């Protein structure tokens, strides 16, 4: 098969390994992880731009290296080429190799901050993303200095306690997919957990979902195929998403 994959850069190393094992001819394009920090419609716009650019190039399918991620995927339409996406809340489920395994782990470990090599290597955003980010829009990116200048030193502890998005987290779980830098970054994640006073766990990752994606083994319970003329709809069930006829 001749396939195109448009993917979040968090999967860069894992996908490169999968591509070296596939018999399919796969053209790959990575998009900055930073688009997750934009408003949902802006994230969608960026991915759709890449899809449309490749829609009439004769690929058998365009694969998406994304999960529901901020619900960007709802309403996504396939126009000329079929689209294929793993059924997963986000990249963590994909890197664990199973959406169900992720759900179970997630609910048994509330307040867990997940990390992987791709996550940690792509954690800083470009200025263009920073300027348009939700953090900027809501003032969550203000430095201590800016908060002191605007609201006074006496209000800094009050504001910082309320603006810290991770203040209720208790644990870092590092997903090890055995790629380059795994050991070093797992250690860094562990050190971050220790300095925050959080627990730490390393979980073995599994790239089977990414391998199946590029191999074209799209079983119904793990992948959604969106045929031309269809769009993605949220289901509120275990399958997370379904494809329905798109109204023109």
């Amino acid at each position: 098969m001749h396939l195109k994959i448009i993917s979040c850069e968090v999967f860069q190393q894992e996908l490169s390994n999968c591509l070296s094992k596939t018999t399919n001819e796969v053209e790959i394009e990575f998009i900055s992880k930073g688009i997750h920090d934009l408003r949902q419609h802006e994230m969608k716009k960026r991915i759709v731009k890449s899809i449309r650019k490749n829609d009439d190039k004769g690929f058998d399918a365009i694969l998406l290296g994304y999960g529901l991620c901020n619900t960007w995927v709802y309403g996504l339409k396939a126009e000329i080429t079929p689209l294929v996406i793993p059924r997963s809340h986000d990249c963590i489920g994909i890197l664990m190799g199973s959406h169900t395994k992720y759900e179970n782990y997630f609910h048994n470990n509330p307040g867990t901050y997940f990390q992987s090599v791709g996550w940690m290597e792509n954690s800083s955003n470009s200025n263009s993303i920073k300027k348009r980010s939700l953090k900027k829009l809501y003032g969550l990116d203000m430095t201590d200095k800016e908060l002191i200048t605007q609201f006074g030193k006496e209000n800094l502890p009050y504001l910082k306690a309320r603006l810290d998005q991770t203040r209720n987290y208790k644990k870092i779980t590092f997903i090890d997919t055995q790629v380059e830098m795994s050991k070093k970054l797992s250690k860094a994640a562990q050190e971050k957990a220790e300095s925050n006073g959080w627990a730490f766990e390393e979980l073995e990752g599994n790239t089977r979902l990414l391998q199946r994606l590029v191999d074209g083994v799209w079983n119904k319970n793990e992948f959604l195929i969106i045929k031309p003329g269809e769009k993605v709809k949220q289901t509120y069930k275990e399958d997370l998403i379904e494809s329905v006829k798109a109204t023109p």
Partner: protein
Amino acid sequence: MDYLEKLHDAVLNGDPATAISITEKALAENIDPHVLINDYMVRAMDEVGRRFEKFEYFIPQLLMSAKAMKGAMALIKPLLVGDSVQDISVCAITGTVKGDVHDIGKNLLGALLEGGGFRVVDLGTNVSPEQFIEAVQKHEAKLVCMSALLTTTMPGMKTTIDVFKEAEIRDQVIMLVGGAPVTHHFAEEIGADGYRDNASAGVVLAKELLGIRK
């Protein structure tokens, strides 16, 4: 009484020290606490909510306004004990659903609900359906506001509503949902009474559904 407008401005501009000193002065002059709340502070918080909704105010500004109002209310509240107006103020329960520990948005809603005259009982994060029910019964709440930031935890809102139905108390409360992944469609699908995409609009909806005039 001209100086009372400064109380409005102190809440609007997020200046706790001025809000407290004006309130102290007003109470020393026996000004009716309800006047301070309704004519000055609630009006200011309404404007804070409006500015936030239009992205004219950042979250830190809203938090400072909430701090200013809270500081003034701490002086006023002891005077309202046993007061009929306080007793009939509507109780709202807020909480982030089970499995989810994010609370910035939920806390903003809580601040604006308080600013809008509600008595708010916040259950914090990772709240089970049973904890929501217990709080509703204990505080005779009329409003339940559930938050979720993740698609993994959104289903907890449906579970909570279902447990309210099983306990046969669903009809006694208005149940609203909010949070980044939540949509109108989701709210309808799970049987919630409403959804808004920001805290300020959530307060307006809550008042509307409870028949509270602005």
